[in-house]
């Protein structure tokens, strides 16, 4: 198989995630888009690991999965706190620190 098939698919998923993170209003949807970005990185890591015939890419993908789990836990806790204080998780309305 061509290496570029995997890399281009991962690049597409990455750009879709960037679009979602920029264009969405709901903060849970933004967190989902960030998961899409991390997943694209994982595909890249595993494709390059298979290309170099080393297991290091898979180990790094495992670390990325662990970091993603931690990120979602803390991120959703922050989203719940914002909802409790402001009764909305609309990111356009979270502008207390706007000058």
């Amino acid at each position, binding site marked *: *198989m*061509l*290496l*570029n*098939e*995997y890399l*281009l*698919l991962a690049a*597409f*998923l*990455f*750009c*879709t*995630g*960037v*679009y*979602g993170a*920029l*264009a*969405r*209003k*709901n903060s*849970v*949807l933004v967190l*989902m*888009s960030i*998961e*899409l970005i991390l*997943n694209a990185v*994982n595909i890249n890591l*595993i*494709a390059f*690991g*298979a*290309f170099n*015939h080393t*297991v*290091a890419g*898979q*180990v790094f*993908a*495992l*670390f990325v*999965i*662990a*970091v*993603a*789990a*931690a990120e*979602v*836990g*803390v991120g*959703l*806790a*922050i989203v*719940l706190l914002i*909802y409790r204080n402001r009764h909305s*998780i609309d*990111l*356009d309305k979270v502008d207390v620190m706007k000058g």
Partner: protein
Amino acid sequence: MGGSHLALVHGLNVAQQIAFFALAGAMVLSALRMVTTKNLVHAALYLTVVLAGAAGLYILLAAEFIAVTQVLVYIGAIVVLMLFGLFLTRAPLGTGQDLDNNQRWLAAIIALFLFGVLGVTLQKGFKGTHVNAIPITDGGSNTAAIGVSIFHDFVVPFEVASILLLAALVGAVVIARRD
């Protein structure tokens, strides 16, 4: 003997290509629907399809341990956590509401530009490069090779990851606690 072996390798390649393009098509469509759908729960379900497709790609690349971890952690835990987040924040369920902000076109231009740059760079750098998915084994299974690698070459990052998970656990409890 040699001819039949070559034919077997060729047939395997064709099967891998078919599986790859089926998975890739499903992932591309689901990712596009995920960032454009007007229904929050549908977005989470489309994300599940993308993550499951990625698990299939890992199996195609002979990384079955990562594929199982992907299903367990991403689909089993993270998507469920996202759905809980949607329900706990009383997200407006059902179709029809506007979930995008007013910088949608700017975001689309940025994403397209980024994809163009990445695509041109990847085509220049890796055009015609082949990857053959042979299991990476030192006499044992792929999973055993990953375990040996984690506890030999990546001990310090592994310990750091455990500290990070502990900190995230405590932090999430402290942030979300009602006091």
